[in-house]
């Protein structure tokens, strides 16, 4: 039901949607991420559990997991970004808890988030070169 709502509201921006267990998995167009997040938050998905990413060898898939305390459902939204020079809008305006995981995604994958108040590395040293969780990264 939530999926129908999202599809109705955002149409093309929702590139795919399916239910798996108690997860609603959607793929979202990058430019609509903030609006989808806001809509989800209004629908009760007020808890941002995680923002992470994965290198699928074709592209980087940035994954957002929102949880609704009331229903117990997870909304897992993915957005694709190119493996180099990727940019996505930041969710920090919607969720205060997005700030640090987005920094980690940048640190590990190189995806920058527009609108982020403090876009710099978080776990690795500031002068580190490269983004380790990419499949192409070589340890020296």
């Amino acid at each position, binding site marked *: 039901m939530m999926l129908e709502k999202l599809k109705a509201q955002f149409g093309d921006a929702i590139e795919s949607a399916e239910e798996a267990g108690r997860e609603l998995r959607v793929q979202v167009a990058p430019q609509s991420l903030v609006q989808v997040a806001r809509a989800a938050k209004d629908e009760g998905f007020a808890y941002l559990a*995680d923002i992470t990413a994965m290198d699928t060898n074709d592209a980087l898939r940035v*994954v957002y997991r929102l949880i609704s*305390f009331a229903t117990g459902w997870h909304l897992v939204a993915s957005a694709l970004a190119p493996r180099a020079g990727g940019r996505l809008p930041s969710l920090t305006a919607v969720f*205060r*808890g997005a700030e640090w995981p987005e920094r980690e995604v940048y640190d590990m994958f190189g995806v920058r988030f527009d609108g982020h108040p403090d876009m710099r590395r978080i776990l690795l040293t500031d002068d580190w070169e490269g983004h380790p969780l990419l499949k192409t990264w070589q340890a020296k």
Partner: protein
Amino acid sequence: MTQRLTPTETMVLNMGPQHPSTHGVLRLQLTLDGEVVLDCMPVIGYLHRGIEKIGEARTYPQILPYTDRLDYLSSASNNLAYVQAVEKLMGVEAPERARYLRVILLELNRIASHLMFVATFANDLAATTVFLYGLREREPIMDLFEMWTGARLTQSGLRVGGLARDIPEGFVDKAREYCTFLPPRLDEYDRLLSGNRIFRVRTEGIGILPPEEAIDYGCSGPTLRGSGVRYDIRRDEPYEVYDQLEFDVVTTSTCDCMGRYAVRMQEMRQSLRIIQQCLDRLPDGEVIAKVPRTIRPPAGEAYGRVESPRGDFGCWVVSDGGPQPARVRFRTPSFYHVAALPRMLRGWKIGDVVAILGSVDIVLGEVDR
């Protein structure tokens, strides 16, 4: 506000990474005006070991000992989140005996972790004696772990499909003994601390985190429940046999350090309750399901979620069909709690920094991974 007659400068003070009270290698860059914290910038990564990257080059069973070392004070919850994800991918369910034993292991870990919290929290506030008492009460639990899994702290007691080993002879009796041994001591320490005027003055009303902000920051566990939000994964997204057990979800509405401390004290008592119920109902049977020798989950992704002593511990595993995962991600509660620290510290004094940081109970192993 009084008017400033003489201009003063703000001072930047580094707490950490080596500091007796930052509970690990955490660096807090505090901007101070005298004793008042104007801003705080946490710097992390001193304990980053690249476990997620390592996970991509290890087989599924090999990753398990790495998970122990994330939140090293409560390794069973880390193990379980990972194992749950893999079991979901494989479509395997642990036998009932294993599930009860897993709950016992988890709750013992919770008690051990909370005792460590009480000990270090009291130590930060200079009630040094409670530090030693807390660690002393933890020793019987360590003995139980050693008896069962061979290790005191990083047990790796779980396996995909169940447990590594069944409990040995005498475990049940020793565990029951502990359940009667601990409550009077908890009462004593509670009186020693929360009955003490100085302790109360250092923790009541300090470090307020309003509930909406707590949720917005992604806080979970006692940090969230200390702010009045009644959310516990064991109750709201039950796993193992929690849906068949009776226990209370403890919350306080004070949103301060005392609240978070009180939640953990009560949670220990609830954990003892859970353990006793499990010991009573423990069925016979196998402790591990039939699982192939080489674990190759079919392609797909799964998320395991556990209520660790620190909060919402999640593990996202993506499989490409091979013996090694394509991605292993650990969503750790302390990461988000450290992110929320600036909000909790702003406006308080240096002495409060230690109290607030202690009350949030972070473990750097899971912040940095």
